[in-house]
């Protein structure tokens, strides 16, 4: 509490639970677009997981092949994650433009720049987290189907492949690949989603309330 002339200036709060609730409601309101954005994350992460799991299963099924993800596959993976990030940025920029008035209003009610930033980053964490989990599941299923259909392996061998440490992962190397890839998927998808949202969210947070309110959609 500080004083300024006749005023006693107090704290400004915006508890995380309240911010999270508003973010969740906003995602629900724009469900289709959020679903499409999430689907992009799911595809990217599913690709990553199927690649990793397939090479793990191949190594168990055909030990002499020394199968590893090929360079071009990693390149494709990189491109797919990049496309996904661009998609998220685009979608979030639209979300900000649609909500100029809402952002302006929040600021007239006392919201600080960082509160606006947190609201948008929350949305990206929800989308990224969900995309990561679903992408992991789909990638795993794809790899198992590939293993059974193409390599003719059984569930025992797949179990063995999943319980061994994953290749190409210097960290998390003591964990079975099923666990380490899950963690990796979540880290990548949430990081990607947050990084892609940073610019739109920062732009929204810095909006001058008078300008934001003047904006007609």
């Amino acid at each position: 509490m500080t004083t300024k002339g006749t005023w006693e200036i107090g704290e400004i709060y915006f508890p995380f639970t309240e911010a999270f609730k508003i973010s969740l409601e906003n995602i629900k309101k724009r469900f289709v677009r959020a679903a499409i954005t999430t689907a992009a994350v799911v595809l990217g992460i599913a690709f990553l997981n199927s690649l990793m799991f397939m090479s793990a299963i191949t190594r168990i099924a055909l030990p002499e092949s020394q199968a590893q993800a090929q360079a071009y596959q990693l390149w494709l993976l990189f491109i797919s994650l990049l496309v996904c990030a661009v998609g998220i940025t685009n979608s979030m920029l639209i979300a900000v433009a649609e909500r100029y008035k809402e952002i302006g209003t929040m600021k007239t009610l006392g919201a600080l720049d960082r509160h606006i930033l947190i609201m948008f980053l929350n949305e990206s964490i929800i989308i990224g987290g969900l995309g990561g989990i679903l992408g992991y599941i789909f990638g795993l299923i794809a790899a198992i189907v590939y293993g059974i259909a193409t390599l003719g392996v059984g569930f025992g061998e797949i179990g063995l492949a999943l319980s061994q440490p994953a290749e190409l992962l210097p960290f998390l190397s003591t964990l079975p690949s099923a666990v380490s890839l899950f963690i990796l998927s979540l880290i990548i998808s949430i990081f990607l989603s947050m990084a892609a949202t940073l610019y739109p969210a920062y732009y929204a947070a810095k909006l001058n309330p008078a300008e934001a309110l003047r904006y007609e959609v």
Partner: protein
Amino acid sequence: MRYEYTVETEDLAKYYYMGKYVVKALDGIDLKIRRGEYVSIMGPSGSGKTTLFNMIGGLDRPTRGKVYIDEVDISKLDAYELAWLRARKIGYIFQTFNLIPVLTALENVMLPMIFVGTPREQRIKKATELLTIVGLGDRLHHKPAELSGGQQQRVAIARALANDPAIVLADEPTGNLDLHTGLEIINLLRTLNKEKGVTIVTATHDLKMIDVSDRIIYLRDGKISRIETRAEVTVEL
């Protein structure tokens, strides 16, 4: 604490630079608004009403001059202090209502109280009271899309009063409402002004507002062209 003037402006000016041209949206406004007054700012569109509204409300910074709210010069405030000013000292009402679409009426009224840290129980109690006062006691859990324009503006009025502000600023509060609903909103504002002693400043060109205002300030090209007090207005009628 009581101060004679809730709002005071000194030589207030706002210029917009459009290439070579300077648009003088406000050009030297001296204004004093007493606590508990109901003041209407009138003028044609483009006369600077909304700019004045933004300056008094701490939403934009003036090019020149000073704005005092409860005797503090708000052009000297930092971002945090401005946010506190907007949360605590000023309640805003807009032409387009500007409720948060994903929140219910009750949650919309509770939002400003979240920012100043009112405990949850108290928030619910106060928001319910305010919504009952504006006549929406039976619409607490409706979202804005489920309410009519007049009802949305009532929620906005309740929200503006949530933190017991020093002034309520209303920018064209009846601009999007039909004649009858507009009159209801004006009467509600007047009642709140009389009964709760809320200082109300409206920017408007709705002539219905004249009847209820203590003072009417006419703006033209960013300058005050005329000020009428209630007595004079009545005589004119």
